[in-house]
């Protein structure tokens, strides 16, 4: 769809909202298409293409808010939604922290691939499936979903803000396990975003390393005993610790209700000085990153923790007003944990007893950071070497404590198009088996 048409729809929506009585309003109009290829149980199963649009409207009237989302962009549907949104605001409750974004310089953003090459996408996926069969014969692709997603969106508000974003890129996610006779491993999964089909998909990121480890997991045995010691989190599940901690301790909910253990720690040390964490939507290594927030502010990269010191909460404008803190310049989840100085191999060599965790199957951690879960696709580390793959192994700890107990961060990182994570060795994690 022509971007000018979407801009026209956005302005039409705002004008209708004003007519219906909105004091302030914002809308996002989006049109998208997806071409998707599915592989199930190792065989091609489905080709799917979807076309959809979305309209999200927010209205403030008499300091009361209403939000409506529909997936129709015809005038009749927008008229009805605009009217309904104003009515929803009228019956709502007053809140003097409601607002819409101030005017900034309007801008059109672009990112990604030009057009989907379906034939080449199929060929690359076919090659991927064959490569796995040849290079990792015990690995079985349980499910693979590859797609090309193209979207055009316009954000506009009654303060005169108008941004557009055209984004298009490929993604591939696979769920896999290894099998050998009666032996079978836990499933694992990986995903990666990319803009070009010029190179083999299997060569991107740390996929080969993960498939190699998957074959080794066939020898897994239940872990017996219990120790409290070192847990190395691989990039594939580091987000379960670091991103979850950031979300739990710096996000809207726990800052608004004052239950975050970091509520009064801005500018103070909350983690090991080895740890630096940033949100990086505007970065060449990130594919399709946020260009403007859902509230209509232009996105900027932002340090959350720098050398262990809490630099920013990850607050929306609403939560910032509510808590008297600063708005975060991005609401993106594209995260970078800065690499360290130790080579991954040396990190492992320095560990006498520990566990290498490659997937964590666990519940949502408590707001105080207590967590426990099952270490999946994981290996024991004994006397400086990765030894036995383990089954039925639980780990538990506290996220805030772990961030303070960083032993080492690897030089190497893994990039999947939306995050950049190293391997991190944490101390003080309880590992228990049968």
């Amino acid at each position, binding site marked *: 769809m022509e971007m000018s048409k979407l801009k026209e729809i956005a302005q039409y929506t705002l004008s209708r909202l004003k007519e219906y009585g909105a004091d302030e309003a914002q809308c996002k109009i989006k049109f998208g298409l997806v071409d998707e290829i599915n592989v199930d*149980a190792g065989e*091609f*199963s*489905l*080709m*799917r*293409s*979807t*076309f*959809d*649009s979305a309209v999200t409207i927010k209205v403030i009237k008499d300091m009361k*808010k209403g*939000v*409506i989302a*529909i*997936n129709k962009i015809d005038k009749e549907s927008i008229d009805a939604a605009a009217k309904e949104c104003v*009515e*929803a*605001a009228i*019956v*709502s*409750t007053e*809140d003097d922290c409601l607002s819409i974004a101030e005017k900034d310089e309007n801008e059109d953003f672009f990112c990604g691939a030009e057009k989907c090459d*379906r034939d080449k996408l199929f060929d690359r996926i076919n090659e991927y499936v064959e490569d796995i069969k040849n290079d990792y014969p015990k690995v079985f692709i*349980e*499910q693979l*979903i590859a797609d090309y997603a193209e979207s055009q969106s316009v954000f506009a508000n009654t303060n005169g803000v108008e941004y557009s974003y055209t984004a298009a890129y490929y993604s591939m996610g696979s769920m896999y*396990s290894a*099998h050998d006779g009666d032996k*079978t491993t*836990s499933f694992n999964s990986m995903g990666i975003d990319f803009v070009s089909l010029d190179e083999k998909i299997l060569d991107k990121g740390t996929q080969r390393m993960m498939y190699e480890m998957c074959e080794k997991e066939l020898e897994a045995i239940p872990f017996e005993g*219990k120790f409290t010691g070192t847990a190395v989190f691989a990039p594939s599940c580091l987000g379960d610790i670091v991103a979850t901690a950031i979300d739990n301790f710096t996000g*809207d*909910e726990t800052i*608004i*209700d*004052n*239950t975050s*253990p970091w509520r009064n720690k801005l500018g103070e040390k909350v983690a090991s000085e080895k740890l630096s964490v940033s949100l990086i939507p505007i970065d060449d290594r990130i594919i399709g990153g946020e260009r403007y927030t859902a509230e209509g502010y232009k996105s900027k990269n932002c340090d959350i923790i720098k050398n262990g010191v809490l630099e920013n909460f990850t607050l929306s404008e*609403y939560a910032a007003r509510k808590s008297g803190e600063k708005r975060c310049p991005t609401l993106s989840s594209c995260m970078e944990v800065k690499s360290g100085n130790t080579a991954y191999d040396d990190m492992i060599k320095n560990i006498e007893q520990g566990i290498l965790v490659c997937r964590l*199957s*666990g*519940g*949502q951690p*408590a*707001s*105080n950071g*207590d*967590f*426990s*879960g*099952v270490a*999946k696709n994981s290996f024991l580390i004994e006397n400086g070497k990765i030894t036995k793959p383990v*089954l*039925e192994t*639980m780990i*538990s700890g506290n996220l805030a404590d772990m961030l303070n107990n960083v032993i080492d961060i690897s030089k190497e990182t893994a990039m999947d198009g939306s995050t950049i994570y190293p391997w991190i060795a944490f101390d003080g994690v*309880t590992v*228990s088996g*049968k």
Partner: protein
Amino acid sequence: MLNDLIKKHIDGISDYTEVRSQINSNNRISIISGNLVGNSRVTSGGVCARVYKNGVYGFSSMGEYSDESIKSVINAARDNALFLDRRVNKNKLPLMETPTAFYKDTADFIDVPQKILLDYAKELDDYIVNKYPDLSSRGVIVSSDCIEKLLHVTTGSFSHSLSPRSCIYVSMSAEASDGSNIELFEAMNCGKGFFTQIFSTPSELYEKIDNLYEKLMSKKEGVFSEAGVCDCIIDSSISGMIAHEAVGHTVEADLVLSGSVAATNLGNKIASDKITIIDYAHTAFGKEVPLPVYVDDEGTVCEDAVLIKNGILKGYMNNKETAMHFGVKPCGNARAFGFSDEPLIRMRNTAILPGTDKLEDMIASIDNGYYLTKTQNGQADTTGEFMFGITMGYEIKNGKLGRAIRDTTISGVAFETLKTVDMLSDEISWASSGYCGKKQPMPVSDGGPAVKCKINIGGR
């Protein structure tokens, strides 16, 4: 009108084709610590088609209901099926024929005004803050969703279904003596129906809120569980998670074909004699189940799927394609979440059948273990290894309930854990507030009695 348009386009198509028109709606109010952070009405609808060709599917969807969009999605789905068929040449047989379904829901859509949801939520929030001012945070979420589907299949099957579901979620937290924030959450009175069909006045939930507060106060003084394998009683309010996570996912036929542990165990003894697990379609124990499904999204008439009977693995959950592969009759487990989603093999209302024991006798039979009463989420593995997050529970010492415990996780290997079940209570509880995640979300329910088994519990 839409029905006639779809019928017009599907008549005369030679390849197996499903055309579905669907609208999903969700109205939601979220109040966090007195702040109205969510007041939204979301609807998403359109039309889709799926075409089967020699062992592969083509699918397409558009967010419009028109003569043109129906024609477009059918053509695009056929082109997509041809695209794959030409490249992979599976040359598989046509899909199996199943009895033609005809189902028409007689219920009408009820558009509940947002003000009714908001007033209900505000009154509940007022009750909580006035009665329990010492809480460090509180949350009330009112959610009312509905999925309406109109399905035509070239086999002649037709279905028009309306699936409303409403729920209230309440959360509370309080500061423990060690300074940490302890929280508890409960989904209250969730089930099939539009909001005004289930909820009438907030006072109907006051007793549940009082109970939740009391439990939070116990948990605030709670201890960390001792890590390791021990005897546990999993309360009837959460034991359905065993049926869903530990067993259900491993016996979804698509996961069986991907090498799940159930693949080599059909007909084998995989659980205690006491265990029977059924995925109910629409009726159980003489009543409609919480989230009934009468015809699935492939046009198959829904029937119960018996998964485990007296400890023996009896069958899988199938769609038409996997049923043909295994040479069985499909029971109607192919379900799609949104109009732009293809049907996948999904559970419906999966339950462990009750036994004959009394809960108090079950507790009295344990010297050292835990009674686990609330869960938050669960995950399964194709190996049968499963976990649930536990958010409320109690120690059992010498046959009596002891101190409350803090959040933890339990895990086990399904077919080993189920062999350790030696007592089942004589009642069943259903939980229907959640979504199952598997490429697409899906409303599901699960149920069961209190279950006594040996399980691995996390802790410090």
